[in-house]
């Protein structure tokens, strides 16, 4: 195989993981942008989504479409519940307290899943039965194609939602200045709840695609993609939706190319190295808005 097709194939591999990172990062970044908190448990919502899909299809034997809708609903509801119980009381607390709480929620979800489903991986067949396409020597699977499309649709849809709808402008107002937004008659609690519902629904979609891609369920499955997606969101400029998509895809490609051509051992170090360099050059990430404190 020539070098060019080799590189092309690795690029496709990068896009494949990258689009999953991007999908998760979009939810991460939206919650951060509006609620101004690092929702460390976002990755674990993905895990909940994956297990829900498993329960609905493999155990309750519901049709795929119904199972997907129910999974999204379960995660959205979970997002709202978590926000109400764990984060809402901390609206005015220091961000560190919120971060620790989010870590607590993450541990809670993981260990609950561990108690219910045990540590042994559960095999799960993909519910997406679309045949892949072949470009010369390179095979792109159906799931990968669906993930690509889903990520792009989510990004565009979410950007439009935030910028063009009434609810979206309420979100932006809350993001800019919570106090002012509530003075203008925006229900801040409702808006933040909605943010979490949408963010968690996105996580559910990510969970569904993730599990169709990798076909194995473990209680910790959300942890690593969660961290990677967080890195992607920061890389792209946290709070910025197209930035999250860009960050996710870049992360996937960097990871794939450095594994293939530099060192598989140091790939993680390279990914974090790129993050550090980008942040040093552009402290708010690639597409993030530069914020200076007014003196």
């Amino acid at each position, binding site marked *: 195989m020539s070098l060019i097709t*080799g590189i092309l194939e*690795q690029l496709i*591999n990068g896009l494949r993981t990258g689009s999953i990172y991007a999908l998760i990062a979009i939810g991460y970044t939206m919650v951060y942008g509006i609620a101004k908190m690092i929702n460390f448990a976002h990755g674990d919502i993905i895990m909940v989504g994956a297990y829900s899909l498993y329960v609905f299809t493999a155990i309750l034997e519901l049709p795929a479409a119904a199972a997907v809708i129910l999974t999204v609903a379960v995660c959205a509801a979970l997002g709202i519940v978590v926000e109400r119980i764990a984060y809402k009381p901390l609206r005015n607390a220091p961000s560190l307290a919120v971060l620790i709480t989010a870590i607590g929620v993450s541990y809670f979800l993981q260990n609950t899943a561990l108690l219910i489903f045990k540590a042994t991986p559960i095999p799960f067949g993909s519910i997406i039965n679309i045949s892949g396409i072949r470009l010369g020597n390179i095979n792109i699977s159906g799931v990968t194609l669906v993930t690509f499309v889903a990520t792009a649709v989510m990004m565009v849809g979410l950007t439009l939602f935030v910028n063009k709808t009434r609810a979206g402008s309420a979100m932006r107002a809350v993001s800019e200045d919570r106090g002012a937004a509530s003075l203008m008659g925006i229900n801040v609690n409702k808006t933040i709840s909605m943010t979490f519902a949408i963010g968690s629904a996105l996580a559910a979609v990510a969970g569904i695609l993730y599990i169709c891609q990798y076909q*194995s369920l473990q209680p910790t499955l959300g942890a690593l993609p969660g961290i990677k997606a967080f890195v992607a969101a920061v890389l792209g400029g946290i709070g910025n939706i197209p930035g999250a998509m860009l960050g996710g895809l870049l992360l996937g490609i960097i990871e794939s190319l450095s*594994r293939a051509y530099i060192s598989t051992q140091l790939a993680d170090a390279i990914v974090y190295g790129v993050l550090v360099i980008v942040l040093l050059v552009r402290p708010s990430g690639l597409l993030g808005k530069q914020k200076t404190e007014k003196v």
Partner: protein
Amino acid sequence: MKKWGKAVSFIMAASLVVASLTACSGSGETTADTTAAGETSAAAGTETFLIGGIGPLTGSAASYGISVEQGAWVAIDEINAAGGVKVGDTTYMLDMVFEDDEATEDKAIQAYNTVMDEGAQVIMGAVTSGACIAITPLTLQDGILQITPSGSAEACIANDNAFRICFSDPEQGRAMADYAIDSLGYTKIAVLYNNSDEYSTGLQTAFEEEVKAKGGEIVASESFGADDVDFNTQLSSIRSTDAEVIYVPAYYQAATYISNQAKEMGMEIPFIGSDGWDGVLGTVTDASTVEGAIFSSPFCASVDDERVQNFVKAYGEANDGAVPDQFAADAYDTVYTIKAAMEQAGSIESEDMIAAMTEITVNGLTGDAITFDASGAAEKDVRFVEIVDGAYQYREE
């Protein structure tokens, strides 16, 4: 200003501690019950011999520790049902305490001390290599017999009081290399291993050295990290070489992802693996992805062997129909090794049992005639398992 909050925090933490202490004493009572049962039988001329098990029951390696604990209980129940272990005039009933080490070194030390507090007379563990190495200085100091069912790193049995049931990583890696070249006839081999795991790297190093020594060629040596689930990059790299076979010295979780993704990519290069592959059929969605894979394994739950099938049946009955893996089998053999050492030594003193270890032969699940050399390593035949028609099968020599 923060004091009050602190005070209340303390009260919360303290109440938690108290709650857990009561939980502790609760479970203490149940152990007291079993010892009470032991005492009543002691009145009938028997005593209890306590095995201290150490392994991960929580955390990412939990499944290995749980298998070891469950496999050991099958052997213990079997031995006790058959009348216990006769040492001189006394009959000993076996019992076990098993403590969680989360597969980490510092927790292993605490787990070891905990089982010693509970009066362990022999140590079965630790299950994972790092944890096992961490407790070896302590077991040496206490002069207690330590048998690890699955600690495969060489340093696990560096001391005279330490023995192991499984193969060491270098032994297994070399054996697979010999088999791949001599019996399977491969010359161009790719390796895909977990670089954050001492088991995987230990196998990979020995395998690659042996392949090169035998005149074979390692055409690619790719690695992955602890929780990786995407192996397309590495597989693409391997596909661009002229590898005839891929050696994957890893546990079945990784093997599941790898074989699945290779199939999805349309790769047709066969796989060979290590004993960690045992269990892979339980986690793949499509058995055809691992069809034809060959791996070195001392144990295979589906072979047509009466002893193995009895073990599988007993294990399943005790654990909701679970199928035992090699960890369970290693633990089962560990318990029988302990029994043999007690009988051979005619004593339950660790010193005597350690001396007896090199004299015993154990007819186990993972080997027909397991013996131990002075270094503490088990000597037994290497077996190879092939996946044929979605089932494990021993390879005929």
